[in-house]
């Protein structure tokens, strides 16, 4: 349908155009207007697209293909040259080598194959891409609004030393958003690849935004790893075209397994690098040096979701094979190790990063298993994780600015210092692991899918989820504990920040309350279309989840009876209390302060050691996957 395709094109092109425009706007007020308008437009566009009856469609882009292809080729060449220059200037031969290999391959491919590289449908819309588009538009849009207020405070207050390159920043954010839309709507693998590489480049530029040596180093690491994925992507395209004479995604997915296995394996590899699975997790952890909107948008909600999106797309092609099992193993191991590593650190963004890596691992696990039930669970995970994790990142960003610290230990008593932000953080954290919120539903679905398909993989979920319990609850406890009566910190939120935070909190609740609707409207039709059968949660279970949600919602209401008829005394400090709960008389009559410091398992777990185990283990697994695919 014409309208649908127009919307799709608009969603891809408008943000990119807006990005280019924002690249030259220096005036903050004008920037706010442009960002606000474009975000609103994107938001409405995505909702319209999702609400459109029967949007599932495939379309041909109504431009002249020759000029379009030439334009894309030039963009690719330009990006490639830029990356090579970067590699040379930073003396990273690996970057140069990877880019040359990748670029050379694609160039050779395009020049030799030329006119035969036609796709019947360049773009398409199905329920899965709609979900991804919704996430990109709604969550991504919220982040762009948030970034307005956040970046102003970033440059004017918190980080005066960082050169103010906000036009560049916002340009990249919107170009990225457009590229993401292109990624999820692309059926032509070449186009997918282009958008994929654009996101890689945006990520590189945004991580290095502050231009400190540490930022540059981490940006380059991200670039290397994503380029490796890109190379695999390019190989996949070439291989598939050689064997099946097609560059269409749908064709790939629908092909016989014997045909599709190798490109699917290569694409899974690309997805694994993009979504920072072990052994490629270090780039995501390093990317946390970037400002918070970058972490939220690229490195938790959207870009890394592109990686798992690709893996889930490949699910029908790898299900039941050794390749699929290996992919699932990578996901499972990453889930366990990521969850355990998150326990050991007290830096808020690092915890969130590890948690992101772990949850993406869970989705990759679903993709590797590849049954209908698993894909259904994986898609649920994508939806809920995007919303909750984004909320958490944005809250941590605000807290970082108000408290001037990223340390979780500094957030003690936040529920009194910054009550609204603290409550939203609690909602976000609950949304990440607690019944009856979304992630729990998804994890439940994963468990069921795994047990049906290959029960042995359940060991990863079982150990990983107990580890996630620990670090979330101790963080929640840290927010709730009030050791010393605190003064309220000046917690004014900028308008954009408020909209984003309140909106995402509402979204966490709504996504959970309406998840049956989301499931039946988007996820189940997709799974049905691919697998011919679908999965869902039983009716009785829905009732029970609703009851639990009511419990959770009733909890704040109980504060109406706030402290009636109770007597407040000090905490028990062996009777040596000096002032209210804060100090006690220690030895030699010295007054000691009460200091509550969470457990980080320092003697038991070691982040570097865990990482190393994971890297070695998953490298072996990936080697086995390669062997299984090519042999």
């Amino acid at each position, binding site marked *: 349908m014409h309208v649908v395709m127009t919307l799709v094109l608009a969603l891809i092109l408008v943000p990119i155009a807006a990005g280019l425009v924002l690249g030259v706007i220096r005036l903050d007020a004008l920037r706010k207007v442009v960002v606000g308008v474009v975000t609103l437009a994107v938001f409405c566009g995505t909702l319209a697209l999702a609400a459109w009856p029967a949007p599932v469609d495939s379309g041909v882009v109504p431009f002249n293909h020759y000029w379009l292809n030439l334009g894309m080729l030039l963009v690719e060449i330009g990006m490639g040259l830029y990356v090579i220059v970067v590699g040379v200037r930073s003396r990273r031969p690996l970057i140069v080598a990877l880019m040359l290999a990748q670029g050379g391959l694609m160039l050779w491919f395009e020049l030799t194959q030329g006119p035969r590289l036609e796709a019947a449908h360049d773009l398409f819309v199905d329920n899965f891409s709609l979900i991804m588009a919704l996430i990109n538009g709604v969550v991504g849009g919220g982040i762009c609004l948030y970034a307005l207020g956040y970046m102003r405070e970033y440059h004017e207050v918190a980080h005066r030393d960082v050169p103010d390159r906000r036009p560049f920043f916002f340009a990249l954010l919107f170009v990225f958003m457009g590229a993401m839309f292109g990624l999820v709507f692309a059926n032509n693998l070449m186009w997918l690849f282009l958008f994929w590489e654009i996101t890689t480049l945006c990520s590189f530029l945004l991580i290095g935004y502050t231009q400190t040596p540490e930022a540059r180093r981490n940006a380059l690491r991200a670039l290397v790893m994503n380029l490796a994925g890109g190379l695999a992507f390019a190989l996949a395209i070439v291989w598939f075209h050689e064997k099946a004479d097609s560059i269409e995604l749908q064709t790939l997915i629908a092909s016989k397994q014997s045909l599709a296995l190798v490109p699917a394996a290569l694409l899974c590899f690309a997805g694994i690098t993009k979504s920072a699975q072990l052994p490629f997790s270090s780039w995501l952890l390093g990317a946390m040096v970037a400002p918070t909107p970058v972490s939220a948008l690229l490195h938790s909600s959207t870009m890394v979701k592109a990686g798992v999106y690709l893996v889930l797309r490949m699910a029908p092609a790898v299900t039941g094979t050794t390749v699929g099992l290996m992919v699932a193993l990578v996901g499972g191991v990453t889930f366990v190790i990521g969850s355990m590593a998150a326990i050991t650190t007290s830096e808020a963004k690092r915890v969130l990063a590890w948690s992101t890596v772990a949850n993406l691992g869970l989705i990759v696990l679903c993709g590797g298993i590849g049954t209908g039930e698993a894909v259904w669970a994986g898609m649920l995970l994508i939806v809920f994780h995007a919303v909750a994790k984004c909320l958490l990142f944005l809250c941590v960003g605000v807290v970082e600015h108000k408290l001037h610290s990223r340390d979780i230990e500094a957030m003690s008593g936040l529920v009194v210092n910054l009550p609204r932000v603290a409550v939203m953080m609690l909602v976000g954290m609950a949304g990440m692991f607690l019944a009856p919120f979304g992630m729990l539903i998804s994890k439940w679905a994963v468990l069921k899918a795994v047990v049906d398909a290959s029960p042995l993989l359940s060991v990863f979920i079982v150990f990983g989820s107990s580890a996630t319990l620990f670090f979330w609850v101790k963080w929640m406890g840290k927010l709730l504990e009030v050791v010393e009566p605190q003064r309220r910190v000046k917690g004014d939120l900028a308008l954009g920040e408020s909209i984003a935070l309140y909106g995402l909190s509402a979204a966490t609740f709504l996504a959970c309350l309406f998840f049956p609707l989301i499931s039946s409207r988007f996820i189940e039709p997709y799974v049905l279309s691919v697998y011919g059968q679908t999965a869902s949660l039983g009716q009785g279970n829905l009732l029970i989840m609703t009851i639990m949600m009511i419990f959770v919602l009733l909890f704040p209401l109980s504060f109406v009876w706030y402290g009636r008829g109770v007597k407040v005394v000090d905490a028990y400090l062996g009777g*040596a209390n000096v002032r209210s709960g804060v100090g006690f008389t220690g030895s030699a009559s010295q007054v000691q302060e009460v200091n509550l410091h969470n457990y980080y398992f320092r003697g038991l777990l070691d982040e570097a050691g865990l990482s190393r185990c994971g890297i070695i283990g998953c490298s072996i697994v990936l080697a086995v996957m390669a062997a299984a695919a090519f042999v």
Partner: protein
Amino acid sequence: MAGIKQSPWILHYDASSCNGCDIETLACLTPVFDVERLGVINTGNPKHADIFLVTGAVNEQSRDVIRNLYRQMPEPKVVIAIGACAATGGVFRECYNISGGVDSVIPVDVFVPGCAARPEAIIDGVVQALAVLEQRQLDTATAGGSVDQVLYLRAQKSNAPQILALQKAAYQSEAGIYGDEGFPALQQTLEELEDEFDRRPNREASCLGTQETRKDPEKTPNHVVFIKAVVNGRIIGAVRGYAVDDTAYLSRVIVHPYFQGMGIGRRLTEEIETAFPGVKRFEIFTGHRNERNLRQFRKLGYQEFKTEPFTPAIRWIYLQKERK
């Protein structure tokens, strides 16, 4: 209150004991005596405890700890002082670092004597404390659920033992000011105190030859009036007074050390003044070095008018006030 007698949970604290009494207390938990039969659990946590068992005399460090622990215990609660040191300071009473028994810090309900107190005696003390606990809960319940509120009521002769114990506890600090324990308040016996309840001062005055000018029997009670301050069923303050002709003679405004500084003494004085509506003048006296009392009385409108020596160390200062 149903049930508290069957589930007494204990907080055991060693103020500065030589551990003799502590060993005997813990022996109660052993198979030979097994107080868990009675439902006793030795919790280490004031918030879970009903009975506060204290051994040892009170020194500088344990004074604050005892107050903190006592404050953190929920009502209804009782305090048992175990051993001679906890009762009065024992052999360490005169030491420079000992301020006395436990009742110099918190109100004590049961004293278990001995050095060291035997387990049988300790268990007996616990049983008696349970009776006190039960009675206290009943009193609080009948007073209309007034937890932690100070109630000012007429005292009866049956309250004499508690008032005497309170008197001794309250006057410890006063005696400390003078370095002399010859205070009549500290020397008074139970019989003497009970006699006070029965005294008829007006008749005595008339027997002494003063003209009986009682105009209004209700307005001028002819016996000693005792007023007690009660918190959660325990008496923590008292005052007494009697009237002869147009003057009311008030004495022994006592408040337990733990509850001092909360305006209870002042309220007691005001309450007893209202007990004598017919008199025109109030008279009260205190030791000459007791600055706090003097200040209090002056704030209430009293003025000094007479000084009388009592012992070489103590002089009584008399204050009076006209009714407005």
